[in-house]
C-alpha cells in the first residue's frame, strides 16, 4: 500500500503537477518566471554557492538521464569496469560539489539579512529537500555500489513503466530502502517545481545561441513591410538559385556535347577528304625520312672509326661549321690561329640548347637561350653565365686525300704526327671514334 502510493500515485501527481502546473503558471503568471537572482544583494557567498551547485547538479542530472533515455548504450558502456569506476567517481565528486554549493546557499539564505528579505518559505523547503536528496544519493552511491550498472535493470524499467502508463512495482519492490527514499524524494521535488523557483530551469535561454543581436519590434504597418524584405530576399535567393542552376546546366550540357562528339569521332574513326589524307601522308613521309636520316647517321658513326667533318680550308676561325659528333650531339668546327682545326661541342652545358656558331671579338661563342658565353679556346663559360661547366673540346684527325692520317689530336690537346705546312690546306678534318671512347 505504501509502496503503491510512493511509486505509483505520487509519480502521477508529481508529473501532472510538473506539466500542468508549469504550463498554467506560464500562461497566467508569466511575470513570475524568473531566476530570482540575489546576486545584487549578496555576491561573494553566491559565487561559492551558485556555481558549484549548478555545475554539480547538471553533471549529476545528465548522469541520471542517460541510463534512462539510452539504456542499451549505457549497458554496453558499463560492461567495462574502467568506465563504471570513472562514471561513479565523477558522479560522487559532482554530488559533493553540488552539496557544498547547496550548503553555502542555505547558510547564506539563513544568515544574510538582505537575502532574508527575498526568501520565501518555499525557497527554504526546496533547499532543504535538495540537500536531503543529495545526501541520500551519496549514501546510495556509497552503500549500494555501482548504481550505474544496476539502475538499468531496476529504475530505468520502472520509470518507463510509469511513463508508458503501465506502472510496474516489481522493479522497485526489492530495492533497498535508501534507494526507495531517493526515488520518493525525487517525485516530491518534481511535484514542487511549478510552485517554487525551480521553474527557472525551463528558462534556459537556448534560443540566444542563434538569435540576431538586435531585436526591433514594430506594431504598425512597418511590421508587415519589415517581413516583406525577408520574403523578397527568399524570392531573390530562389531566383539566384534558378539562375545558377540554369548556368550550370547549360555549361554541363555543352561540356557533354563536346565530350560525346569526341567519343563518337574516336570510335567511328577520322573522316577525311582526299586532300587532307594526302597532306597527312606527306607529313608522315617527311617524319619517316627524318628518322631514316638520323638512323643513317647513327649507323655511320657505329661502323666508322673516322667521320668526315670538313675540308680544312673550308673552316674559318670566326664562324664555325656545324656537324654531328659520335654521340649524335651538335658540334662546331673552327680553324685556330695555327691553322689546325678546333672542334668543340655545341650542346650548351646549361640546358642543352645549341650554341651559336659565330665568334665575337673577344673570342667567345654564345648560347642564345640563356646568354651563356663560352671561351672558344678552352670551352670555359664566362663567370656569371647560367652555364657553369665548360663545353667539351673534341679530338680530331687530319687526313690527306689518300686517307692517310697526317696528324691527330686528343680532346686533352695531345697531338700526334707532323704535317708540312703546304699540305695543310689540302687535308680533311675527321673526328675519331677512339677519342669519343676516352671522353
Amino acid at each position: 500500500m505504501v509502496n503503491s502510493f510512493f511509486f505509483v500515485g505520487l509519480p502521477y501527481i508529481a508529473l501532472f503537477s510538473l506539466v500542468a502546473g508549469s504550463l498554467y503558471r506560464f500562461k497566467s503568471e508569466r511575470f513570475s518566471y524568473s531566476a530570482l537572482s540575489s546576486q545584487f544583494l549578496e555576491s561573494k557567498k553566491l559565487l561559492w554557492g551558485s556555481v558549484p551547485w549548478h555545475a554539480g547538479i547538471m553533471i549529476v542530472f545528465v548522469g541520471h538521464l542517460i541510463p534512462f533515455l539510452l539504456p542499451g548504450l549505457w549497458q554496453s558502456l558499463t560492461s567495462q569496469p574502467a568506465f563504471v569506476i570513472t562514471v561513479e567517481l565523477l558522479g560522487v565528486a559532482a554530488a559533493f560539489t553540488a552539496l557544498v554549493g547547496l550548503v553555502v546557499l542555505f547558510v547564506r539564505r539563513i544568515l544574510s539579512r538582505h537575502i532574508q528579505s527575498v526568501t520565501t518559505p518555499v525557497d527554504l523547503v526546496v533547499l532543504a529537500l535538495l540537500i536531503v536528496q543529495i545526501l541520500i544519493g551519496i549514501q546510495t552511491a556509497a552503500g549500494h555500489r555501482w548504481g550505474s550498472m544496476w539502475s538499468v535493470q531496476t529504475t530505468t524499467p520502472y520509470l518507463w513503466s510509469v511513463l508508458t502508463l503501465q506502472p510496474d512495482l516489481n522493479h522497485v519492490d526489492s530495492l533497498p530502502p535508501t534507494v526507495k527514499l531517493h526515488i520518493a524524494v525525487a517525485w516530491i521535488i518534481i511535484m514542487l517545481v511549478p510552485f517554487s523557483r525551480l521553474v527557472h530551469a525551463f528558462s534556459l535561454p537556448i534560443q540566444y545561441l542563434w538569435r540576431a543581436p538586435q531585436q526591433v519590434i514594430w506594431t504598425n504597418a512597418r511590421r508587415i513591410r519589415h517581413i516583406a524584405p525577408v520574403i523578397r530576399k527568399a524570392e531573390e535567393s530562389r531566383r539566384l538559385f534558378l539562375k545558377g542552376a540554369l548556368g550550370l546546366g547549360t555549361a554541363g550540357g555543352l561540356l557533354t556535347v563536346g565530350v560525346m562528339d569526341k567519343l563518337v569521332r574516336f570510335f567511328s574513326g577520322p573522316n577525311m577528304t582526299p586532300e587532307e589524307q594526302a597532306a597527312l601522308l606527306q607529313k608522315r613521309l617527311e617524319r619517316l625520312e627524318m628518322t631514316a636520316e638520323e638512323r643513317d647517321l647513327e649507323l655511320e658513326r657505329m661502323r666508322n672509326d673516322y667521320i668526315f667533318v670538313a675540308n680544312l680550308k673550308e673552316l674559318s676561325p670566326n664562324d664555325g661549321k656545324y656537324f654531328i659528333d659520335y654521340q649524335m650531339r651538335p658540334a662546331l668546327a673552327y680553324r685556330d690561329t695555327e691553322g689546325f682545326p678546333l672542334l668543340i661541342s655545341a650542346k650548351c652545358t646549361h640546358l642543352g640548347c645549341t650554341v651559336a656558331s659565330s665568334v665575337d671579338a673577344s673570342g667567345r661563342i654564345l648560347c642564345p637561350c640563356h646568354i651563356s658565353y663560352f671561351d672558344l679556346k678552352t670551352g670555359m663559360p664566362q663567370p656569371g653565365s647560367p652555364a657553369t661547366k665548360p663545353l667539351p673540346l673534341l679530338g680530331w684527325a687530319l687526313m690527306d686525300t689518300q686517307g692517310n692520317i697526317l696528324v691527330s689530336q686528343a680532346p686533352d690537346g695531345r697531338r700526334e704526327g707532323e704535317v708540312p705546312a703546304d699540305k695543310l690546306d689540302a687535308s680533311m678534318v675527321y673526328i675519331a671514334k677512339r677519342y669519343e671512347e676516352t671522353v
Partner: protein
Amino acid sequence: MDVRAQVAMVFHLDKCIGCHTCSVACKNVWTDRPGAEYMWWNNVETKPGTGYPTLWEDQLNYRGGWELTGRRDLRLRCQTKASSFLKLFYNPNQPGLDDYYEPWTYRYQDLFDADAGDDQPTAVPVSQITGEVIDIKAGPNWDDDLSGSPIYAENDPNLKQLTEDERRMLFEIENIAMMYLPRICNHCANPSCVASCPSGALYKRGEDGIVLINQDKCRGWRACVSACPYKKIYYNWKTGKSEKCILCYPRVETGQPPACFHACVGRIRYMGVLLYDADRIEEAMKAPEASLVEAQRNVLLDPNDPDVIRGAAESGVSEAFVSVAQRSPVYRYVKEWELALPLHPEFRTMPMLYYVPPLLPISGRMGDGIYEHSADQFFSHLDKARLPLRYLAALFSAGNEDIVRTVMKKQMAVRYFKRAQDVDDIDPEQVKRVLREAHLTAEQAETIYTLTALGSLENRYVMPPIQREEAIEGAGGPGCSPELCKGTCGLGAVQPPRRGA
C-alpha cells in the same frame, strides 16, 4: 537604405543647474516601488566625479558596451554567446548593492511616538530592503558638488586622460571647476543591452526607437545590467526582473514630453525625431575612436532630402514622423550645428541622447573674472580653460579634442555675436571674424541663440505624432496588436508585479 525614426534627445549642459528636479520627477512617477527604490532611471552627476553607480564609466570593471576586435568585428565586451551561459549562475561584472547604495527611508512615526524629553525626537534611517536601522554610507548623488574631493572626484576614470599638471590645476582650491551631467537611458541605436539579453526580453521599438524590457519575457539573467556601459539598466531585487528608463512612453505616445523633460527647471532638455539609416550603423560603429563622432553623424539622415523622404516612405516611416523630423530641434543641434555630442561614443552603442558640452566652466580662467574680448585672442583661452578640453573630449568625443574645441568656439562665437548686438561694445568687423573662425553665419548664430535661450515648450519638445491609427491598423489587420507583439498594451503592467515563489 533602411530609414528608421528615433525619438532623440539633447541636453544642453551649459544650462543645467544640477537641481535634480528631473530625478525626483522620474522617481515619483516610476521607481517609487519595492525593489526599485535604489533605481534612478534619471540621475544627475557632478563631473569630475565617480557617478552612479560608482565608477560606472570604468569598463575594465563592468565590461559594458561593444569592443572592436583585431579583425574589425564588433563584439560585446561582457560576453560571447557561449560564455553568457556560464554567467547565468554568477555574473562577475554585475554591480552589487555596494556599487549603488542601500535605499533607506526614515521612521517618521518615531517623531510622534517619542516620549516627552529634553531633546528633539529624530526620525532614524531604516533600510528599505531589510527594514533595519542603518548607518547611511552612500546615496544616489553622494558626491554631488564634490569636485576636488580626493575620495570622489579624483577617481573619475575620465581624468586618466589628463596630465599630472592638469589634474593638480583642476583641483586647486579656488580654481576647482565642475559641471553637471544629467543622465537617462540613451535609447541607443546599437544597444549592447538588447544584444546581451539571453531571454530576448529587451527590444527596440520600431516606430520610435525606445528601448524597452518585456517584463513577462525577462528571466532575470542580468546580462543587460553589465552589458549596458551607461549602467542604465537596474535589477529589481524584489521582482527578479531588470528595469530601465522607458522614456515615459505612455506620455510620449500621447504627445507629452517625458516627466524628467517636463520637470526640467533649466529648460536644458530638447526632444525631437531623428531619421537614421539602420543599414549604416554597423560600419559606423567600427570606425576608429577619434572619428566615431563623425561616423555617428553620418548615419543620421537629412529629413529634408527628397531621397530620404522617399526612403522613409519605403521603409514604413510615416509622413507624420518625417514632418516632425523636419522640425526637430535635436537634428539642428546634432547635425546642422554640430553642437551636441554623444556621451562616451567609444562604447560604440550609438547613444541617441546628445549633450551640448558646457562652456561656462571652460571660461573664467582669466584674472578677476573678466574674459578676453579682443578677436585676436578670443579663442586662445580655450586651451587654458579651467576644465581642460581634454577632459570634455574624454566624455563626449572619445578623446578627439578638435571636435570639442569646434563646439566651444561656436558657443563662444554666439555669445560674442549677441554681446555685440545687445551691449554694442564690439567692433562689427571683429564679430564677423570670430563668427567666420567658428564656421557660423550670423543667421545661424541667431537661431542657435533663439533655440538655446528662448526656446518655448513647442520648440524644445517636438514630439512624435500620436499614431493611434497605426495601433488600430496593427490590432485588426495581419499585423499584431501591441499586447500581442510587445507583451504590453502601453498602459503599464496588466498584472500587479508580484514576485515569483
